[in-house]
């Protein structure tokens, strides 16, 4: 089981973190949630049938809970963790990849649908996971792509 989990973890922990960033989480929050969900997935590994869908769904819910809860003020630079040993380098990564951060500027539903799509899920999968009709997912995805593209083209320094 450890070997299977290791393969799964290595293949998915980065994309899961990226998925949460797309949903609006800061990098350190995204990394914390991704690691917590991976721990849960490891503990329940044999009971889970579709591991990737499970961790994405669980991570989405965890982020909603995190946003809804009243948090203590966050320090400027978060504490290092196993998965995030160099939080001081977050700013550099964010500056380099503002394109990814543009997804966060979309309206919530479009952002949610595009984040799931970029995570490798089809509109039918997404419809199941977030409880919307597949047509609504497709319509929001179309808008999200158009708006994200427009935002990217307007971004400073983007060559046209």
């Amino acid at each position: 089981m450890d070997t299977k989990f290791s393969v799964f973890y290595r293949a998915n922990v980065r994309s899961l973190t990226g998925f949460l960033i797309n949903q609006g989480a800061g990098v350190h929050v995204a990394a914390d949630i991704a690691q917590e969900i991976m721990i849960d997935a490891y503990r329940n590994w044999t009971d889970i049938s579709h591991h990737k869908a499970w961790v994405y769904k669980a991570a989405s819910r965890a982020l909603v809970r995190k946003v809804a809860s009243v948090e203590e003020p966050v320090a400027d630079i978060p504490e290092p963790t196993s998965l995030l040993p160099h939080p001081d380098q977050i700013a550099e990564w964010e500056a380099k990849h503002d394109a990814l951060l543009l997804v966060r500027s979309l309206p919530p539903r479009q952002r949610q649908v595009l984040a799931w799509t970029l995570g490798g899920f089809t509109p039918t999968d997404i419809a199941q996971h977030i409880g919307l009709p597949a047509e609504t997912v497709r319509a929001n995805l179309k808008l999200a792509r158009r708006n994200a593209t427009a935002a990217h083209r307007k971004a400073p320094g983007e060559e046209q």
Partner: protein
Amino acid sequence: MTDHHAADAHQQADRHLQQALDELLDVEAGLSEVLLHSRHDKAVDDLDVVLDTEAGLAAILPAAETEPVLPAGSVGAEEFLHGLSPEALLALRRHPAVRTTSDALACALGRAPAPAPASGLDLAFDLILDVARALARALGLPFSHDLDRNLALNLARALPKVRGLDLNFACALDRFGALIRALARAFDPGPGPGPGPDLILGLAHDFAHALDLVSASAPAAVLDLDLARACARDLVRVLDLVRGHDCPIKAATLNVATLIEIRTAEVGRAISLALQRMLPALRDVLAALNDFTAADLSNAELADVDLKGIRWSEHGTQWPPSVDVDALKARSDAIQPGNGIWVVRSGTTRACIESRFSS
């Protein structure tokens, strides 16, 4: 004359249509939307700058059961090869994949004549074919290493047509097909503009990401999938380097150090394939494959064995009685005059064996 007028009329109609479409279509915006995925994948890949995946994994797994990860270039892989019997090492050198990739590495190292300067696109095609072979093996399809490039490419193009696969694998093969088509058009553009380096790199990222998903959803680790993923990562790297050149993609060349590094990794993957176990990268793979300075070959069957590149010692290597050591010496270069270590230049041992019996 009538044909001439008809052709003019067609061209005018075509130009008119293009002009009309230019008013309607925003090609750059369309491309930007397509590239949204590759930009996202690149950003996620670059999360490695801030995330330590191995430390995160180690924090979850029980310490004693954590899978050992050998760093690239560790002595472990070299020691493993040194531990093989001389016969096993000779068999490894004869494996088609090891032979082909070793020859390509020897060219990159300047130890064998190279047909042309190292084109990044040529290397990309070699990597595409390696990926295709690995995927075909994973699917249980025959895909020989001895096929010429055109035939191999045709087979690679057929892979996306395989039916009955799970969704992840089918998606990865679709993306593989799109990447091959784009690379083929870049290599031989024909009329009209070929795909740009950004688009090709984006397609390679998409494919590499799709392969990761295939591997993650596999019920157990599959060597051929691991080899295909490692190869796809090198492919992305090559295309990223090619993208940085000002010249057309077809003419972009790689620097020698990068070429050697990627060719070395190719040989490493070929060895992993031959041994059916994933080995970490070797620093000097040809030295490990060619070192017979202390080998006892006295009982080895050497008829028709290609000894090119083998390093042997006058005092340490034991040859079968049928081998004429003086004839072999005449076919070898001394590493340093007087130290008794030689490297076989070319040819098989057949001539050395025959000259022994005819003298």
